[in-house]
Structures are given as structure tokens and as C-alpha cells.
């Protein structure tokens, strides 16, 4: 008899769980950050939630030694994964590294603590261009970490030296059919549909169903030409010879080229990365402190540490992404600084767009992407 009422346990538990989570909806970032933090102050060990291979392990060690705390690092493969883990609350993380559009979402959801500028004196090192970004005006909740572009890398042994720096190498049948089965695109609706939208001359943040439908049609035709949609290994597939034309993120390509290079082989000569002339995605990843961070003061100190000129340069020298840290430039390898693929010239930057959250329209992108695949 008693067994029959046991099914009530899960139901009751769910009610308790959901009851809790709706209560703290919509709070601002006050709570945990209320206590004032001093520059260089600590209040415990740091828990960092970051993308993988995004920070030089040396920097972590240095931070640990300098401030006598230990750092636990956990990794996320996408902004959405990170959001899923953080949004349920009490995740235990102090510092997270969301991209642009995700910062906006997290601010609106009340997941981020307002930064205490007094505890981060190195904020002065930031390039002024990065202090007032559209997703976080005035930078009240986030500090730019690194930035980069999405573009195309090609194997010049296959496509030759004389190719147009255009999305046409993927979308235009006349150019691209020659590489059929040797092309990869990012397995991400906003990135791949965004590339198609740019090629068609539209904004990659469009909320116009007709423009999206056009991009979907273009991508449907393109799918037949692709080897794979891949966001994790596109750079390895290119360097491994499985693909010849790859859509992907700048820094991942450069890391792969760097690792493939040996004393008698310069991968940078065989492979070439470019931002298509029609423009593409520009993104900024940002450090932010969670509203429920257990160690907000250590978190502020870590943000300040990463903004240090030499540390910022060490970061770029490690991950080959451009730094928003103006003071760091003198310590960055000149090869990186002068590489137009990493620091694109102004006229290229002018054509780039941040991915912005399109609200309810976002599901249209996802459905269009699924449909384009077949």
C-alpha cells in the first residue's frame, strides 16, 4: 500500500526545486558583491569557468603564487553549455568567460555581478575602443578578454595562391565545386547562416524571415558540397588534409598551424587564413563575475591580474587571439601584432559584426539550420 504513494516523492521534490528557482528570478547583481573589495584583495580560492586551451597554464601558476590562492579551472564547449550550468544558480564558479551576445543575456537574467571598478585598477590598460561595447555599455558587468574573427582558412596546395578572399570559395558553385567534399563549415546556426547572410549582402543579425529564407536556401545547396559541419576539429581536419577550405575561428587555426610547423615545415606557408571581403563575425570574449560568486574579491583580483600589460600579452602569445589590452601591445610578439589575419586592418574591421541575440527569432535560425542540412 505504502508503495503506491511513493511516486509522490519525485513530484514533491520537483515542486520544491522549481519553487526555489522561481523565487530568485530577476534579481540584480547585488547580493554577493555587496562587500567592497580592495585591489589585490582575496577571499578564498578561485574557481574559473573558461573555454579550453584559452589561458596559458603558466599564468594560472603565477596568479596562484602571487596571491597564495589555488585556482580550479573548468571548461565549457559553448556559451549555451555555460549558460545552462550557471543559470540554475549555485554553480560555484567565480569568473566566467562569455562571448558578447551571451554577456547581454546574462546581464538581463541578473546572473552577473556589477564590477567594482576600484578593485580593478588595470582597467585603465584597456583600449578605449573596448570600454563601451554594444552588449555591455560602459562595461559595467564585463571586461574584454580576447577578440577574434570567424573566417576561412585554405590549403594553398589545393586552392593555389591566387584565390579571391571571399565567401564565394564556399558559396559560389563556380569556385567552390572544385573543392566539393573538401569544405567544412561551423556547426553553429548563427555562424554558418551568418556567413551565408553576409555573402548575400545582408546583416548577420537579421530578423527578416525572407532574408533568412534566402540564406537557408543558399546553405541547403552548399550542404551537398560540404564534408562536414564541425566546430571542434575543423582546424585539425584542415591540417590533416581531410578538408581544403575550412570556416572557423581565427585563433584555433593559428594554434593548429603553429603545432603543425616543424623545423623544416612552415605551416603558415601552406595554409592561409583570411576574413572574407564581404565581412563576417567579430566576437569578443569577456571576463565576468557571477552574481553568486563565492569569492568575489579573489575574482576581482584575477580580472585585474589578467589586465596587467605583461599578462595580457602572455595570453595573446599563447592563444593567438587579439588583445583588447592596449598596454599589452609592447609585449606581444611582433609577428602576431603585424599579422593582418589576427589584427585585421580597419577597412576589414568595418565590415565585421558582433552576433547579437535576436530574442524569439533565435529559434528560427536553429530551425533554418536544421532544414538547410536536409
Amino acid at each position, binding site marked *: 500500500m505504502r508503495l503506491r504513494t*511513493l*511516486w509522490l*516523492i*519525485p*513530484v514533491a*521534490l*520537483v515542486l520544491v*526545486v*522549481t519553487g526555489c*528557482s*522561481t523565487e530568485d*528570478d530577476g534579481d540584480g547583481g547585488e547580493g554577493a558583491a555587496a562587500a567592497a573589495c580592495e585591489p589585490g584583495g582575496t577571499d578564498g580560492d578561485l574557481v574559473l569557468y573558461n573555454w579550453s586551451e584559452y589561458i596559458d597554464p603558466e599564468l594560472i601558476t603565477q596568479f596562484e603564487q602571487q596571491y597564495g590562492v589555488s585556482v580550479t579551472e573548468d571548461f565549457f564547449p*559553448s556559451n*549555451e*553549455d555555460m*549558460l*545552462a550550468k550557471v*543559470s540554475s544558480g549555485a554553480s560555484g564558479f567565480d569568473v566566467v568567460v562569455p562571448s558578447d551576445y551571451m554577456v547581454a*543575456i546574462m546581464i*538581463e*537574467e541578473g546572473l552577473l555581478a556589477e564590477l567594482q571598478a576600484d578593485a580593478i585598477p588595470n582597467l585603465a590598460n584597456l583600449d578605449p575602443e573596448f570600454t563601451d561595447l554594444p552588449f555591455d555599455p560602459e562595461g559595467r558587468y564585463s571586461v574584454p578578454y580576447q577578440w577574434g574573427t570567424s573566417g576561412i582558412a585554405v590549403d594553398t596546395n589545393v586552392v593555389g595562391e591566387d584565390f579571391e578572399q571571399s565567401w564565394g570559395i564556399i558559396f559560389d558553385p563556380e569556385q567552390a565545386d572544385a573543392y566539393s*567534399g573538401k569544405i*567544412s563549415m561551423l*556547426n*553553429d*546556426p548563427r555562424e554558418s547562416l551568418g556567413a551565408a547572410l553576409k555573402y548575400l549582402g545582408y546583416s548577420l543579425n537579421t530578423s527578416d524571415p525572407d532574408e533568412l529564407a534566402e540564406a537557408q536556401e543558399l546553405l541547403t545547396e552548399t*550542404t551537398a558540397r*560540404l*564534408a*562536414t*559541419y*564541425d566546430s571542434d576539429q575543423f582546424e585539425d581536419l584542415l591540417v*590533416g*588534409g*581531410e578538408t581544403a577550405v575550412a570556416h572557423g575561428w581565427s585563433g584555433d587555426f593559428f594554434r593548429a598551424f603553429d603545432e603543425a610547423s616543424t623545423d623544416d615545415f612552415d605551416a603558415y606557408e601552406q595554409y592561409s587564413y583570411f576574413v572574407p571581403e564581404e565581412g563576417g563575425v567579430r566576437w569578443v570574449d569577456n571576463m565576468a563575475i557571477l552574481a553568486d560568486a563565492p569569492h568575489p574579491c579573489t575574482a576581482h583580483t584575477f580580472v585585474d591580474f589578467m589586465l596587467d600589460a605583461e599578462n595580457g600579452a602572455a595570453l595573446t602569445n599563447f592563444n593567438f587571439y587579439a588583445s583588447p589590452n592596449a598596454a599589452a601591445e609592447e609585449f606581444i610578439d611582433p609577428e602576431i601584432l603585424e599579422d593582418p589575419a589576427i589584427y585585421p586592418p580597419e577597412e576589414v574591421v568595418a565590415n565585421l559584426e558582433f552576433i547579437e*541575440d535576436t*530574442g*524569439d527569432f*533565435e*529559434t528560427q*535560425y*536553429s*530551425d533554418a*539550420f*536544421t*532544414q538547410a*542540412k*536536409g
Partner: protein
Amino acid sequence: MTTDFGVVPDLTPEQEHESGAPALEAASERRAARRGFLVALPSFAYLVIFFAIPLVIVLVYSFATRNPRGITELRDWNVEAYRALAEPLLRSVLVRTLVLALLTTVICLALSYPFAYYMATRDSEVVRTLLLIGVMIPFWSNFLVRTYVIRVLLSSSGPLSEASQSIGLGEVDIAFSNAAVLIGLVYGFLPFMILPLYAALERIDWNLVEAARDLYASGWKAFRRVVWPLSRPGVVAGCILVFVPSFGAYVTSDILGGAKNPLFGNYIVNQFLQARDWPAGAAVSVVILAVMLIGTLVYFRTGGRTL
């Protein structure tokens, strides 16, 4: 075969009644039942916490609302997510997944039956054990890693391709295709078919086959009338064990299929991690679960009994 289920316990109390010490026996039975419950409690608790509760949460979320920022809000309960299931987009995904899962099951059965038959008919215990270990070796390494290895094997620069080029047959390039997904699924789920088949075939009393032959049944007829019916529980178990996970597979399609032909599993993952539409992903999961559950129940209610 299944007629011995449940019959004995049902009869026992009544027999005890007639035999004369009802109260005492009943009390000791209750004690035994309570002891049994206590022993089963850990696994019962485990299932409730990690199986039942998550399922209820999935069900609850499928009626929730996605706010404009892609966060699920547990209010304004609605069935919008279930309405979206009727769209043609999902139908094509469903058909593709069904075909692939059925093909996987049929191929697995065709490959496994002769192998399991061979294993079960070996006289030597050592040979049987060695073959069994061989079947289980793949479980000792990670499925994801093995799937990546298959991709290398099937790729245009892989060993298969090199071998076929060296004998003049040209390049083999089946990585990133539906064929590659099928190969990966069959490979991944083959042991789930072989093991129940082997268990069923190994239990068969081969004297029955001998008797059939003595009564002038041909080899084929003896198989069809004796071996096959006796092995059917293994066939059914194997088919369920292969069909259900291949219906929900998604890494195989991403890694070996190049994510070009989304399966149901991919669709669900994309709802959660790309569209951030948890209610939609939860609704699809609930529907699949319900269909699987009903299918299995119907089977055990009807055909299952008479096997």
C-alpha cells in the same frame, strides 16, 4: 516459456491456508517481504533520484515557456512545444531516424545471429569464453574515441583508402556520409545484439534439434521450427536493445555523418544548446519516450506473452 512467471507465488498462500498454520505463515511472509524491500531500497532510491525525478523534470519543462533571451521560465504553462512537433521539419528528421534505426537493427541481427549460433554451438568452454571476451573488448574503451577512430579509418587519407589505392581500386571516401553513420551505429550496437542472442541460443536443448532431424525434418526446417522459436526471446531483447539506443544516437551522426543529416538526437541537442529552447527539446524527448514505452508495453502485453 513464460507461463511459469508468477504462478507459483500466487498458489503458495492458498496451499498454506489449507495446510493449517495460516497466521504464522502470513506473518513470516510479511517479514520476508519487508526484508526484501529493505534490500532493494538502495537501488530503488537510486532509480527514483536519478531516473524518475529527471524524467518528471523533463515533463515539467516541456510545458514551460522560453523567454525572449532563451531562458526557460517555469510559468505560463502551455502546450506550444507539442504543437511545434507537427511541423514538416520534424517529420523528415523522424523518417530519417526511423529508417536508420531499423536498418541498424536488421543489419545487426543479420550479422549477429550466425555469430551467436557459432559461439553457442562450440563444444569447448575455452573457445566460447574467448569469443565472448572478444565481443566485449570494445566496451573497455570509450565509445567517443572508437567513433573518432572509425572516422580516421573511413577517411580519404585513412588506411582503408590507402589499401584500396595500392591495389588500384582508387580512393575510398565514405567518411561524412549516411553510410558511415550506419557503419558506426552497427559497430557500436553489435554487442547488444550478440549477447542476448548468445544467451538464448546457449540455453537451447540441442536434443530437440536431434529429435526433429530424427523425424525427418530438413536442417532448415529444424532451424525454422525448433531453434528459431526457442531463440526468439533473445532476438526480441537484442532488437529492443539495438533499436532504442540507435533511435536516440547523436554523436555518431555528428562525427561520422559530418552533422549534415540531423537525427532525432541531434535535433534535441540543438534545441537545448543552440536554440536554447528547452521546452521544445523536452517535448520531443517526452514524445519519443512515450512512443517507446507504449511500443514496449504493447509488445509485452500481446506478443511477448506467447513467445
